[in-house]
């Protein structure tokens, strides 16, 4: 593990940049535990102040210090992303392993369902869903809903891996020595797909945070919880751009960009590292 990290740090500029960007995000999250302001309270500081040394990102029209508020927003958004990723990973691993190993009509049905979820325009469905559940919507519920919708593409990816594992001789040895199908998938195949599962986790975190931003901007999430999406929602609600409070829009947008770039670079870097062909090209082999 340490050696992998060292290799990546040495040979991959994207990995280094990702570590720097995500390092900034982690610092923000840690700072949120030592925030001088309660994010739930408004009018604790003078409102509409532009960015200054005292208020790093300026203050909002609701009298909140934007920097400290955003530390909570990043923390909550990332929490949502991780919960969604865990739920959808469980589904995609189960579906992918089963479809790949069992084959036949089980495979066909599972892949038809998963293809459907890939192609479906999810935003309108999520709008409908969160519109109806608006009263009971909180961060955890949203994470669960997103988790139930975000597994499909990766299930297909995992399946295609298992399809090739199934033809390998160790699978046949296991089958001939009387090992059950479930045992083979969990103990023999799962370790092989774990690297992919990890890489897709990062991608799924990105997707779910983006979805949260989208739904919050439409006013369809729990708007009292600070997240990157609700930050933008409140800025829009107060007509921040028209009122000239541009930092209210710009700061959350920039924090989102930093978080997304960091996660995305980490994702591509690890993804290429997993694939031995691109890894060789990376170190000039």
């Amino acid at each position, binding site marked *: 593990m340490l050696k992998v990290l060292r290799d990546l740090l040495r040979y991959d500029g994207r990995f280094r940049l990702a570590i720097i960007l995500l390092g900034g995000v982690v610092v923000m999250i840690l700072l949120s535990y030592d925030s001088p302001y309660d994010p739930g309270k408004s009018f604790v500081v003078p409102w509409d102040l532009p960015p200054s040394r005292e208020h790093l990102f300026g203050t909002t029209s609701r009298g909140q210090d934007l920097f400290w508020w955003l530390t909570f927003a990043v923390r909550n958004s990332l929490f949502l992303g991780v919960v969604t990723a865990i739920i959808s990973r469980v589904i995609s691993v189960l579906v992918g392993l089963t479809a790949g190993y069992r084959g036949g009509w089980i495979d066909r049905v599972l892949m*038809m*369902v998963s*293809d*459907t*979820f*890939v*192609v*479906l*325009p*999810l*935003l*309108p*469905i999520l*709008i*409908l*869903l969160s*519109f*109806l*559940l608006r*009263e*009971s919507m909180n961060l955890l519920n949203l994470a669960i809903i997103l988790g139930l919708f975000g597994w499909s593409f990766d299930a297909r990816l995992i399946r295609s891996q298992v399809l090739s594992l199934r033809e390998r001789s160790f699978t046949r040895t296991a089958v001939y020595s009387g090992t059950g199908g479930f045992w083979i998938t969990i103990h023999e195949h799962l370790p092989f797909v774990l690297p992919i599962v990890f890489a897709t986790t990062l991608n799924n975190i*990105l997707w779910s*945070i*983006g*979805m949260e*931003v*989208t739904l919050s*901007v*439409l*006013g*369809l999430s729990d708007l009292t919880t600070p997240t990157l999406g609700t930050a*933008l929602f409140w800025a829009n609600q107060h007509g921040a*751009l028209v009122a000239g409070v*541009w930092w209210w*829009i*710009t700061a959350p*947008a920039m924090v*989102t*960009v930093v978080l*997304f*770039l960091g*996660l*995305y670079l980490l994702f*591509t870097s690890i993804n290429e590292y997993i694939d031995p062909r691109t890894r060789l090209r990376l170190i000039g082999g």
Partner: protein
Amino acid sequence: MRKFILRYLIPRIIQYLALIFIGVTVTYIIPRLAPTDPVEAQVSMMIARGSSLDPESIEAMSTALTELYGLSGSPVEQYFTFWGRLFRGDLGPSLGNFPTPVSKMIGQALPYTLRLLIPAVIISFILGNFFGAMSSYYPENKAFNVIEVLGQAVRSIPYYVVAIVLLVVFSYFIPIFPFSGAYPIGTHPNWHSLAFIRTYIEHAVLPAATLVLVGFGGWFVGMKSLTSNIISEDYVVYAETAGLRKNRILTQYIIRTAMLPQLTALAMSLGTVFSGALIMEVVFGYPGIGSLAIRAVYSNDYSMIMGITIYSIIGVATAVFFMDLLYPFFDPRVRYQ
């Protein structure tokens, strides 16, 4: 031909029907999972807001709602009525603009979305694939590397944030593009006037640019990884030793082969792009389906949200199906199966 129908056409048709079936069934189940009685909640919300409707209209609305949610009869009956109404294209009246039919309002907004979405998808697909192939065929060219880094950077960021950054930069700090809408408020769409078409295009630049920018990186990366495997194939090496012109090798031997998986990916991505277009419209106040959706959310127009969801599913499914039907024209292997 018979083999083609059995092996290619029928599975596609089954997939198409399955897509619509699953999508519509999900939309049917969702309201039934909601903890509150939707009709009652809806009507009391309207009354609480001091709606100016007379009792008769409220009664009509309540009936319309019960029917819309399909809440009369047993669940099985409800499910079939739901499908029956879908086949007739009847999605009930809009609650925000009672009693204008939902279908009519969607029909008015849809052209705005499509006139943006279709060109933007085509442009980003062509540019992304072209630059992706060029960059893997000429790996020493620095300009392509810069484009790759930029494209990848934008690709990961949500549509909403890209749109808002473009808006802030190009119509707030550097005001060269209009702030919102599809044409200036007060003007009437007149497709015979050149001046109107000009402002229409001006208004479309930033919204379209959002879709193109986000899409570009994905096609670029996909094409690059596909072509990097193809350039070492025997037939490409042979063509190079035979002294074919580089352009010909690139277009006929490399891009053409890599195009096929990219077309499949294009079909797979339509749902995501469509969702992105909806949220982009909200940022730019563009009068398409996305703006219709946000207005429906704000005015608690449940039937409109339902209608948009179902129409989106059917629309995207049909678009994917048509792409599948076109695929054999690009891939001779499917054609001569």
